[in-house]
């Protein structure tokens, strides 16, 4: 118990020092009339659209896979444990694993669709109108990827927890499995909502060189 307190006091001290330094820096900029140098808008526009787009593609697939993986291991360990004394649950409960897997498939579909919208362009010869399109495309693909990734992350965890409960209650009473499967279907639907919104966000996106000026 004592060592745990020392570690938490340690981390509290470090975090308060860091916060103090950040506040000091911010006050310095504010009070010395250099507030304009902290320019968030410039930062967002200066990051190239390719970076936004590909980070969005990466987030979409990676967060979905984290969600699916979490769900599969939560359900899988419960199925293995429950199947020792009740071997009949093995095959039926693979449905829960399939629901979790579907979450990862949503993520990869989204990332393939959005990755195909991105092409290279030469920043020196691209027209201003096309540049606006490219910036728009970068932001929208990033937004779509974040949407799909986060919603699939939580959907996967949710399906996993419910699937674990389904396996253990199926082991105790076989009549319960079908009812709990209905809960899992609802849990799966929320991942689908994320995919729909992501498609809406990225439907008009493209990053292209355009006609040369």
């Amino acid at each position: 118990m004592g060592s745990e307190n020392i570690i938490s006091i340690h981390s509290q001290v470090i975090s308060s020092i860091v916060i103090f330094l950040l506040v000091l820096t911010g006050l310095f900029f504010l009070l010395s009339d250099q507030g304009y140098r902290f320019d968030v808008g410039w930062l967002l526009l200066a990051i190239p659209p390719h970076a936004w787009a590909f980070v969005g593609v990466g987030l979409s697939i990676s967060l979905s896979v984290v969600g699916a993986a979490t769900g599969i291991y939560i359900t899988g360990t419960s199925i293995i444990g429950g199947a020792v004394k009740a071997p009949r649950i093995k095959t039926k409960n693979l449905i829960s694993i399939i629901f979790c897997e579907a979450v990862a498939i949503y993520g990869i579909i989204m990332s393939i669709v959005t990755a195909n919208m991105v092409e290279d362009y030469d920043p020196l010869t691209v027209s201003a109108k096309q540049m606006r399109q490219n910036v728009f495309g970068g932001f929208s693909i990033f937004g779509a990827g974040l949407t799909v990734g986060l919603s699939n992350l939580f959907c996967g965890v949710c399906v996993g927890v419910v699937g674990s409960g389904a396996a253990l209650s199926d082991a105790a009473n076989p009549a319960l499995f079908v009812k709990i499967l209905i809960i899992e279907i609802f849990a799966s639907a929320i991942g689908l909502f994320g995919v729909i919104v992501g498609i809406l966000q990225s439907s008009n996106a493209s990053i292209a060189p355009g006609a040369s000026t």
Partner: protein
Amino acid sequence: MGSGMSGPTFNIDNGYLEGLVRGFKNGILTKNDYLNLVQCETLEDLKVHLQSTDYGTFLANEPGPLAVSVIDDKLRNKLVLEFQHLRNHSVEPLSTFLDYITYSYMIDNIVLLITGTLHQRSISELAPKCHPLGKFEQMEAIGAISTPAELYNTIIVDTPLAAFFLDCIFVQDLDEMNIEIIRNTLYKNYLEDFHAFCSGLGGITADVMCEILAFEADRRAIIITINSFGTELTKDDRAKLFPRCGRLHPEGLAALARAVDYDQVRAVADYYAEYKVLFEGAGNNPGDKTLEDKLFEHEVKLNVNSFLQQFHFGIFYSYVKLKEQEVRNVIWISECVAQRHRTKIDNYIPIY
């Protein structure tokens, strides 16, 4: 301490074991099984009925006529095998939790060995009577002990019980009364330590386990008080034996320390809604349940309820306690059958 304790991360380390324990729990004897057992005429009938339950053919290789002690040993062996399998597959913090469960058996074993040594029994006679879950090294060295200080220095200091023993060193010599005081002091320290450990784990485990352990503490306080009427135990000594991690602490325990008869104990319990219900209807008339039975029933209810939540360690503790209660039930029925004294055969405590 925080790792592995919340919903999504619990199953990394403990998912398989939770599934396994729930599988074991599904094999606990139900009311129908008990109805079948109660109708047995002989122990052989009992063995046949137990074959269709989760116990299977555990008595298949026993030679000769069955004795109740043999059934007792075999029933307990099944629980021990399952528990050791769980303990071997567990990682921290579940392994510490499972170790805490074994400490209560260690305390019982130590007291059994000391008492036996005082009555000049040999170690080889006593060793098979020890509970296998509470085995520790140096069990055989108990033969040469005469004072608690020696007991501590030679044996206890190497076991996990060393921290619980510090209050007992001041007991002067080992006679009947003092051994009971040692047992109860050890158990009190163990309960309080276990309660603090579970609170430290936090989350659902703390919720479930702290409630169960609080009831255990209160139950011990009540039983110690009732059993100490008419003995030489002074009120101060009695107060030192009460575990302080229950609901009765501090006012209830102070009132219990001052009580001198059963009605005063009942008056103290009336202040607490759950315990008031237990004292009503308890008595020594035929047809009434005794207070101990009602306390057992309440414990069974709490342990059954712990299975209603997922992702916590309480199910491991509850499983051990429910299996113990099941063994007690089956042995009670076997004794009644073996002695053909069937009037009280229905006094077992049904679990499911």
